[in-house]
Every structure is written in structure tokens, then in C-alpha cells.
């Protein structure tokens, strides 16, 4: 094993150590500017759950495969 082989791992270890130390500081409180975008209602994964449910039902009825986004739920005798 050469030094060149180890070098990236050493850098990664340093980076991980820095990240770990920052975890402590960032947990002191949520900055108002930090959560604004992802906390928007339109960023929730099921923000359009009725549309998604209706689409799932159409594609479940008309195609050979279904589900994936969430549990497929119940069946129906769809034509």
C-alpha cells in the first residue's frame, strides 16, 4: 500500500472529524433561515397527496406495474 492510496482516506477522516464537531454547534438551535425552504408546505413529499392517490389509481388500473412511491395499498377489480 502506498501513501498515495491512504491519502484520500486520511482527508476523508479529517473531513468527517470536522463535520462531527460541527454537529454539536448546529444542534444548539435551528436558525430561522435554515429551515424556511424545506419546511414549506409545497416541499412535503405528499403535498399533493390527492393528486398522487388519483394518479396511482389510474396507473394501477391501466398498467402492469404499480406502487414504488409508497405502499401500493389495496386492490381493486379495475378495468
Amino acid at each position: 500500500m502506498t501513501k498515495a492510496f491512504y491519502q484520500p482516506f486520511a482527508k476523508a477522516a479529517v473531513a468527517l472529524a470536522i463535520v462531527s464537531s460541527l454537529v454539536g454547534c448546529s444542534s444548539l438551535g435551528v436558525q430561522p433561515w435554515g429551515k424556511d425552504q424545506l419546511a414549506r408546505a409545497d416541499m412535503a413529499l405528499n403535498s399533493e397527496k390527492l393528486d398522487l392517490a388519483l394518479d396511482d389509481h389510474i396507473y394501477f388500473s391501466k398498467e402492469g406495474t404499480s406502487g414504488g412511491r409508497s405502499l401500493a395499498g389495496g386492490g381493486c377489480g379495475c378495468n
Partner: protein
Amino acid sequence: MQLTSKQSIASALALASCSLLSQQASAAEPIPATDDWKVDAAIMYYGEQDRVQAAEAIGNVQKAFGDSSLLDLKIVVDSLTGASASGAVAQSDSQTFTRPSGDGQYTVATGDTPLDDTFHDTRVQLSANWQEVLNQDWTGNIGVYGSKEFDYLSMGINGGLERSFNKNNTTLSLSGAFTNDVVDPVGGRPVAMSEMVFRGNYANDADYQAAFDQTRLADDDTKQTSDIMFGVTQIINRNWLMQANYGLSSVSGYMTDPYKILSEVDVNGQTQAYRYENRPDSRLKHSVFLLTKGALDSGVVDFSYRYSTDDWEIQSHTLETHYRYYFSPSMYGQLHLRYYQQQAAEFYQPFLMSGDAIPEYASADYRIGDMTAYTIGLKFGQRLSGGHELSYRIEYYQQNPENNGTEIPGQLQNYDLFPAVKAIVAQVSYSF
């Protein structure tokens, strides 16, 4: 950005981690802080050109109990009419078919794709889910589901656990569901691969009925579905998150479509008989779903990909995106694009050849054949006072079934055996 030293790496990481780690998880639906009711309702019309027409109403009520509990109740009512492809092929003569009930016949004109216009059904679906924040890291949910239509009953239970890590930047989830379905087709379940009988070939009603009954099995049948899904949601940065799911689904029981048939044709493509299809009674499905979603300055965008495969050898790839743009703080437009590509089940065949041995499993249902499909949709939404929202959606969905490599004999070459299915979806939704 060029990183030239450990110091610049550290600076970059410090900057990245401050924005990364100070996020609150928003992957799961935020639980309303007050004891508020939230109601979402929609009515949808789905119409295929010359085929199925459906109307669907859906209502969802959400009630928060404090900060840790959430009850979700959903009702769906839909009504279906119109015609559906029976699986038989077009012919140079008109064709007469016995209705699935055995009571009466319908005729399909020369050159037309045979559609069974018997369908008329109403379905009611109810579901309830309870979500509980167990502690800072763990959230659990449990639910029940029921769906009833004239010839079909589906009942299920589901549950799941979520664990947050990394200051809520990473969420792992494990969920499962079990569903039991009861299939009780109009006219009874056909005997697998049995031949359709016709009133005209019998001297009287009693003889015909006796012959028809020979093609039917007594009683209903069941199907059990067990699902398990493992998911990871990861916040990437201040604007982007991603989700990855792996799903495993095991189905056993009656999966044949009791209303689908296959034409049995000779070397000239002339139909000699019609036979009721038969599908295997077990199916093991895998799916991988990847999604990324981003908060833009004036909108939201998501991209997703799904790969699905199973032991029926149906494979599919689905690409989908939604892009929302806010014209003003209270009005948005949204584009929806979806592309779907599917490879046929191993037992799919567009018709049977007379003289060949009758296979154990066969279906001419184009929905499990080779196919591509695409959707293009537009949605407009308006936020009203008091947190209410009104939205309209219209979509165009087209399926393009394809030949799975079957050689087409004689007169069948004159007809489009894989006709496109074109549908419009129109929907109005209201939330308050």
C-alpha cells in the same frame, strides 16, 4: 469551486454542514401545531376515447391531536362505465361474444377492436391512518383500508416506523401492509383457458346454460398481498432533498382477469374460438423508487424514477417530473410530465394459434403486454383567504401498446392489433 488545501476543505464543509445540519426534517408531512382540521377534496373525471369513462370523488380529513398525534381519514367513491378491450383480435367479419354473465351477447363490427361494453360499476373505498410521534427520533403509523365494488372486496392493514438521524436530516422508514381481496366475478370465475360457448349453438336455453356452467367455477376466490417497503429520505442542502425506496410485494391467489379472453386463430388469422385467460397464482414484485425535490425561489420541482420487475417478467421504467411556478404568492401553474415503458409478461400473447397446445397460462390483456405511455398535464392553483386553496388539473394520457415480437398471420395484418388508448383526466380540488 477549487479546493486547494485542507483549510479550504474545512471551510467549505463548515459552510455546507451549517446549512445541512441546521435543517428540520421536512420530508415527512409536518404535523399541524394546533388542533386543526384539514380537509382536502377533489372530483375527477377520467375518460378514454370510445372506452372507459370514470368519475371519482375523493375526500381526506386530517385531525391533529396536540403535537404528536394525527388522524387521517379518506373516502373515495368512483363510478365506471363504458367499454374495455376484451383481449380478442379484430376480424374481417363482425364478431359476436357471450357476455361474462352468460346472459346475452354483444357484437363487434368488422375491423373493430373487440371491446366489452358490459362494465358498469361503483366502488367505495375507506381508509384510516393514525400517526404518532413516539419521541424525538421515532414516529409510528398504523392504518386500515377497505374497498368494495360489485364483484370485488379488498380489506387491508398497514403500519410503519420512521427513525430520524443526523439532526433530522436523515430519515429511515420501514413499512408493511397486508391485504386480502375477494373476487366474485359476474357470471362466476371462468374455467382456465376454457372455450366461450354461444347460445346459437344450442337447441334451448337449458342446454346452453348447462354448457355455459361447464365453463365456470363455483364460489368466489381470494388474493393475498404482502408488502414491505424500506425508505431513506435525506436532506441534501437548504433547497433539495432526496428519497429512495425499495419495495417488495408478494401476491398469491386469484390474479386472472375473469373478463379477459384470447382469440384462437388459424394460419390465415381467422378466429376459430375464444378462450378465457389464465394467469399464475403467485407473483413476487420488486420496485426501486428514487426522487429528488427542490425548493426554488419561485416554485418547486421534483424528478423521480421507478424501476419495477417481477417473476412474471414484467419490467418497467417510469420517469416523472412536476414543475410548479408561482405567478404570484397566491397563484401557481404546474407542469406534469410522465413517461412509462413496460416489457410484457412472459405469458402475454396477443392471440392463440389453433393447432398449438393450449398453454397453462396466457393473457392477451394489453396492460401486461409491451407498452409505452406518456402523460402531459397542467394544473393551476389559487390560494384563497383563510388558507383555502382551489386548483384545477387537466391531463392527457396515452398508452401505446406494442407487438411483443409475435408473428401476425393472414388477415390480422390488415388491422391495428395494438391500438393506442387515449385518455383525458380533468380534476377540481379544494382544500381548507
